[in-house]
């Protein structure tokens, strides 16, 4: 099985983040399965940007450390990348000092001279590079130019096409790379980022209102939904801060509209009081959380899975919340869709956790279809026109601890939704009986939610020397590593709360467990210990802001833990 990796790097502002995904799409349309992984600093000009594409004629899931073909648009790439013997490196070697002794296969493209001779601006350097890359990998130029058409405004289109053509001409036959032939297996697959899958899951579910404040790596949910708002009749708001973001969504949901907010850890800190408000008023709410490293501002454009315990314990006091931890595009899409049903049915906050790696990388295993998708808006009071001004027992249990919602404007549905503890009609109440009744009723929902949430799933051979235990995006590198090694399998949690821990405990039996997480303490492992009493001693943890690279996992398994 051959997996090929191609990487383009250069300073921020060189168009890496448009060229990279475009090339990933060109490969997909040429019949490959593709994964694209971006790395970039939190600055607009300067600093090192790169986009790493992994592709194969078999499904690919994740990023390797290794790079087969490197396109270096500037000297900075050589400062940041390890250049090895087998690599093909495409660069303007005439103009980059210190590269003379490199042992890689050099493809010298005189970018500077080409631009000058053809009176082209610097910004088309990336298109020259794409031309070269297409030629080396045998990609049909029509596929590339069609992508240019889809992505570039008309006035710069011709310029980019001619730049790419010049690049192609520089490419001699001996420079070609032997890649497996693309096939048609991936024709219908979608190549998209995790955040796009979340946004589309929400749109599919009839999202009405999305409000938040931009914070990487959640911002692209906001951007994408904002683009779609008029087309689908959604209201999307960039609010004054995250506090307003979540509270506005709660207001919309109180009024009966399907509402969502999304943020990263720092924003969720501000939203915390709102989560509690949604909980006690039993206002349905979906919260997409894309994690990144660090308390405070941390490392904005890098990845980590360290907010699990924050989310599980969010806000003062105790209340039921649903925590979903999807691991791929399909899970992101369908679980976000289902998150709205769960929020409406149980009237609790529902978290969809992702991280920078899953949110911003491109994956291509999904198709998404309508089969079996159903909307469930839960118990909603139809109204009583005989007694339009009567107060309605909004917080009285109807079934399974769940009360009935009444949208403002409904005759006979009058009620108060208070952040205070309250009676059935929503009037503030502090007597012990009411408090006990409410806490017990609200927590009753947990038993029923448990039955609906997926249990962890085992991937890989049934019996193996090592069973990794993971959640969220770590599924991806493990799936990729499975292709190279059959000495391990893994249990992936796509939901963590509330689930049936008794059954989970059974799944752990007779297994050599290793917790694998991108955080410092092994947060899932500690949740498992709390819920099951099982202490997973072996932990493989990474907390440098990068996802697990496939080689690292294979190495770990080989070493034996």
């Amino acid at each position, binding site marked *: 099985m051959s997996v090929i990796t191609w990487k383009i790097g250069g300073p921020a502002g060189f168009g890496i983040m448009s060229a990279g995904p475009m090339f990933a799409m060109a490969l997909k349309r040429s019949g490959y399965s593709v994964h694209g992984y971006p790395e970039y600093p939190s600055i607009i000009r300067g600093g090192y940007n790169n986009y790493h594409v992994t592709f194969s004629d078999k499904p690919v899931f994740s990023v390797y450390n290794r790079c087969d073909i490197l396109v270096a648009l500037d000297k900075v790439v050589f400062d940041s990348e390890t250049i090895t013997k087998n690599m093909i490196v495409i660069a303007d070697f005439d103009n980059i000092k210190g590269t003379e002794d490199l042992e890689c296969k050099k493809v010298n493209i005189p970018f500077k001279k080409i631009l000058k001779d053809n009176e082209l601006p610097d910004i088309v350097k990336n298109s020259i590079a794409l031309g070269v890359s297409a030629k080396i990998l045998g990609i049909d130029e029509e596929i590339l130019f069609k992508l240019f058409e889809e992505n570039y405004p008309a006035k710069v289109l011709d310029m980019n096409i001619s730049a790419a053509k010049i690049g192609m001409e520089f490419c001699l036959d001996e420079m070609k790379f032997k890649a497996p032939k693309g096939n048609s297996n991936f024709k219908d697959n979608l190549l998209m980022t995790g955040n796009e899958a979340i946004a589309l899951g929400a749109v599919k579910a*009839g999202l009405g209102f999305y409000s938040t404040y931009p914070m990487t790596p959640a911002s692209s949910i906001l951007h994408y939904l904002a683009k779609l708002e008029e087309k689908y009749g*959604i209201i999307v708001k960039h609010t*004054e801060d995250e*506090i*307003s973001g979540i509270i506005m969504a*709660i207001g919309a949901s109180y009024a009966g509209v399907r509402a969502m907010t999304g943020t990263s850890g720092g924003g969720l800190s501000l939203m915390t009081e709102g989560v509690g408000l949604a909980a006690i008023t039993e206002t349905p709410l979906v919260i997409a959380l894309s994690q990144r490293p660090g308390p405070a501002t941390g490392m904005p454009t890098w990845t980590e899975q360290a907010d699990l315990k924050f989310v599980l314990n969010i806000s003062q006091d105790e209340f039921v919340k649903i925590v979903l931890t999807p691991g791929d595009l399909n899970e992101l899409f369908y679980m976000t869709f289902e998150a709205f049903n769960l929020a409406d049915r149980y009237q609790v906050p529902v978290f969809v956790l992702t991280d920078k790696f899953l949110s911003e990388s491109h994956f291509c295993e999904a198709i998404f279809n309508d089969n079996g998708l159903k*909307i469930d808006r839960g118990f909603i009071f139809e109204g009583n026109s005989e007694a*339009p001004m009567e107060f309605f027992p909004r917080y009285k249990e109807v079934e399974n601890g769940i009360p009935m919602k009444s949208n403002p404007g409904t005759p006979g549905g*009058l009620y108060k*939704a208070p952040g205070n503890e309250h009676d059935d009609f929503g009037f503030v109440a502090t007597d012990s009986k009411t408090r006990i009744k409410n806490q017990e009723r609200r927590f009753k929902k947990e038993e029923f939610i448990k039955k609906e949430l997926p249990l962890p799933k085992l991937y890989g051979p049934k019996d193996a020397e090592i069973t990794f235990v993971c959640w969220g995006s770590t599924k991806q590198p493990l799936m990729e590593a499975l292709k190279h090694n059959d000495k391990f399998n893994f249990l992936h949690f796509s939901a963590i709360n509330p689930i049936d821990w008794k059954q989970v405990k059974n799944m752990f039996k007779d297994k050599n467990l290793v917790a694998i997480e991108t955080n410092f303490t092994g947060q899932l492992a500690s949740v498992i210990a709390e819920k099951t009493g099982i202490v997973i001693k072996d932990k493989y943890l990474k907390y440098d802001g990068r996802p697990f690279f496939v080689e690292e996992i294979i190495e770990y398994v080989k070493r034996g833990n």
Partner: protein
Amino acid sequence: MKAMEFNSGKIPVWCPGCGNFAIWNAIKGALADLEISGKDVVNISGIGCSGKMLNHLRTYGFHTLHGRTLPVATGVKLSNHKLTVVVNGGDGDGYGMGVGHFIHAIRRNLDVTYLVHDNHIYGLTTGQASPTTDKGLKSKSTPHGVIDEPLNPLAVALNAGATFVARGYSGEVEHLKELIKAGINYKGFAYIDILQPCVTFGKTYSYEYYDERIYKLDESYDFTNFDNAMKKIWEKEKIALGIIYKKERDEYASLHPQLKDDILLNSTGKLRDISDELARFK
């Protein structure tokens, strides 16, 4: 509905003589005069004695967190712009905690009526200084006297671009009722700062204090003149009551093409066809 029918049946727990009673009566009277049904009204309240208004009106209601009235109001109003939204909060609630939201609600010109029960003190937490407390005043949290300059909330509103700025007073219920009616009828953000004596903790700002200083703006006053309004707002010895500034401006919901034909509520929660969107990812 008659004013009385807007009583929820819950007896208010405000201190006897509290200015909040008058505001309550004015709201009920305004809704009755305008013949709005309580089922089409959402009262959004903040936290504080002011926020307790929620319990006493026969309308829908949302009692949000401290300072967070206006974001809730925005979500509600955009979701169902046919509803009448009345927001009640205090000076601590709205000018302390919520001052950011206040300015942004003004920028949006959301069609709600925002009533600030301005008693120059924190009532519910038993008498700390508020953003509108005068310099030098001693309070529980400022036993040596306030050293911060007080906020002039009407000036903040005017400078932020508010187009309906008014001042009412608990000692003038009829006048206040008319202001609230004008606010509800105004298509946009109607902001009314209400002088509300707190008889328990805000003794400086008593009914006597206000009765000596207030006067009502009459027909000769031109509320469309911004400079006039600024002058009124900075008057030192006298306190003007009435609509201080008013101007027409596009109301927020009307600027959303998504809301042109129907309320948002009617299109949400239905399975959507996203196939042409998916096609772009192939």
